């Protein structure tokens, strides 16, 4: 019963859970390939990976928040607001760099505001970020005034629709941020502290972890990733409207939950979220290929969120009963 055994046990259980999820991915791919001839075409596979990368960028930041037993319901609205701001800066300056700074800066600032609402004002995270969702929603609609901004500089569009050695740029971004996220959560003290805060905030505080500062950090990272995702989305669509990204909230939360992140904190991995994003994208892509009306998507992601939370609760209960 020494500590290394516990860690080892935890690791192998985690690897097993990841293995199951990879099996789900393989099974879904096989089923979709059988069901639709269009699934295994090059353009569709690239399309799936591209969509998964957008979802992963949002969900990876959200995963950090969920690890602390918090939630960021404003990620999709943040993406929308940041995309609108970046679009208008891109259009007025013509500079990809300034546009990217605007998008990421806005995402970070919104995340920081969330972090301060949660820590300094002690508003429960889901209420603070839910309020932020509607505030950002209103701001985006006001800012865009019903208009559309479109046609961005070619250099900027590369990050959404460009290719490098035949592979779309967003897919590189997905793997880059997967590696960074994995290193951050699994190999740094910050990462360990974030897990500790989620598992037991009181114990974390007593052991000297600056809980509030770490919380502000995770909300800021979540916001920043939403800002980054906004740029990728913007570059792919080549246009921005007030409702851009609005429908991504449920899929992002669903990706985290499918990936094994627990809303009760302290449990979850970046690799799980990556697979979660893949599974969810396959579901949506499958609906698309099988010509299910897109209006059913909120219904399906809603059901997936509920199933995801339920599975999480059953898993936790079983683990508690064992110990």
């Amino acid at each position: 019963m020494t500590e290394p055994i516990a860690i080892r046990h935890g690791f192998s259980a985690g690897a097993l859970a990841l293995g199951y999820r990879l099996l789900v991915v393989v099974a879904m791919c096989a089923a979709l390939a059988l069901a639709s001839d269009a699934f295994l075409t090059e353009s569709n596979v690239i399309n799936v990976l591209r969509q998964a990368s957008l979802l992963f960028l949002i969900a990876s930041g959200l995963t950090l928040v969920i690890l602390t037993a918090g939630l960021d319901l404003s990620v999709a609205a943040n993406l929308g607001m940041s995309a609108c701001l970046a679009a208008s800066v891109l259009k007025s300056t013509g500079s990809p760099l300034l546009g990217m700074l605007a998008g990421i800066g806005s995402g970070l600032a919104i995340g920081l505001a969330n972090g301060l609402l949660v820590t300094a004002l002690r508003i429960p995270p889901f209420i603070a970020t839910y309020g932020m969702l509607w505030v950002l929603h209103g701001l985006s609609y006001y800012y865009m005034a019903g208009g559309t901004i479109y046609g961005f500089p070619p250099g900027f569009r590369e990050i959404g629709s460009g290719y490098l050695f035949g592979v779309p740029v967003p897919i590189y971004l997905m793997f880059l941020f997967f590696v960074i996220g994995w290193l951050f959560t699994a190999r740094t003290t910050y990462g360990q502290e974030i897990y500790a805060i989620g598992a037991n905030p009181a114990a974390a505080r007593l052991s000297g972890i600056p809980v509030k500062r770490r919380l502000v950090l995770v909300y800021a990272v979540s916001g920043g990733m939403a800002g980054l995702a906004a740029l990728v989305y913007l570059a792919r669509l080549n246009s921005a409207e007030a409702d851009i990204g609005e429908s991504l909230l449920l899929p992002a939360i669903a990706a985290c939950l499918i990936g094994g992140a627990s809303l009760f904190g302290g449990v979850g991995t970046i690799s799980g979220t990556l697979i979660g994003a893949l599974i969810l994208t396959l579901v949506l892509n499958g609906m698309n290929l099988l010509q299910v009306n897109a209006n059913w998507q909120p219904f399906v992601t809603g059901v997936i969120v509920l199933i995801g939370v339920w599975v999480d609760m059953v898993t936790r209960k079983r683990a508690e009963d064992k110990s």
Partner: protein
Amino acid sequence: MVPQRPLRAALAAIPGVAYILVLLCIVFGAASKGFLSGANILNIGMQSVILLMLALPMTLIILSEGLDISLGAVLTLCSVVLALMLVRGNGLAVALAAAVAAGLAFGLANGLLVSIVKMPPFVATLGTLGIAQGLALAVTDGQSVVGIGAQVEPIYSGSLFGLPIPLAFALGAYALTHWLLYQTRFGGYVFAIGGNREALVLAGVRAHLHHIGIYIFGGFMAGLAALLLTARMNAGHPTAAIGMEFDAIVAVAVGGTSFERGEGWLFGTLLGVLAVGVMRNGLNLLGVPSSLQVVSIGLLVIVALLVDGLKQRP
């Protein structure tokens, strides 16, 4: 400091929401001419009815340390169901029954998820929000449902013994909720569930039934409110009331009901609804677009929470 005590105590006894409401009325009364006219005040009342019908059950839900962010989407779905039933030639009674049944079903689902499955309320209702929104979009194919006939519209514009029908709804809904919360055992459970979870576990099956009942009441009110919403638009629309639960949550919070302590009062919610109504109406008169009104309502709740926090300090 000692001589000031009685005054301070008296000021502290007046709930924050009353200050906010008076302040808003003064500001908007000064800023826009028509604000304090009788017609406009009636208008604020009329515009606040549907919000009140969501905020009343939301008070009970928040008192039980829960949350229901699906209420706006459920209200939308109920309205769409009502409109579709009418378009297909059903009578108003049947259509209303179907709408209320849809609301009750979602209330039951939310209640089961929260009380029996023990999911965190905001995630459970986030899931059902997606389901209700998806259903509303799918059954209408994203389009408005028009051609519902002439029998619904008078419910919003008509009067009963000189009282506009929506205000009669508001009165009835408030009276019903007041009775449930303060005169019945169900109401006792609402406070007990919020204040003390362990007692609830010990109390057994009955407490769970009451807990589920709180969410069912929310679905029921959403079903009834759908009648007014549909009558007001004389149509059903698949995104009509999306996000209205945010206004309802703000009204409850501004009204002084606490998210974490199981404390609050129903009359405060009525004042909170009026504060939100006054804010929207006043900003409307000043020509502020509805997108920015949402932003100011977000700020309103932060101010209310700050005031609440300051008053908690010894």
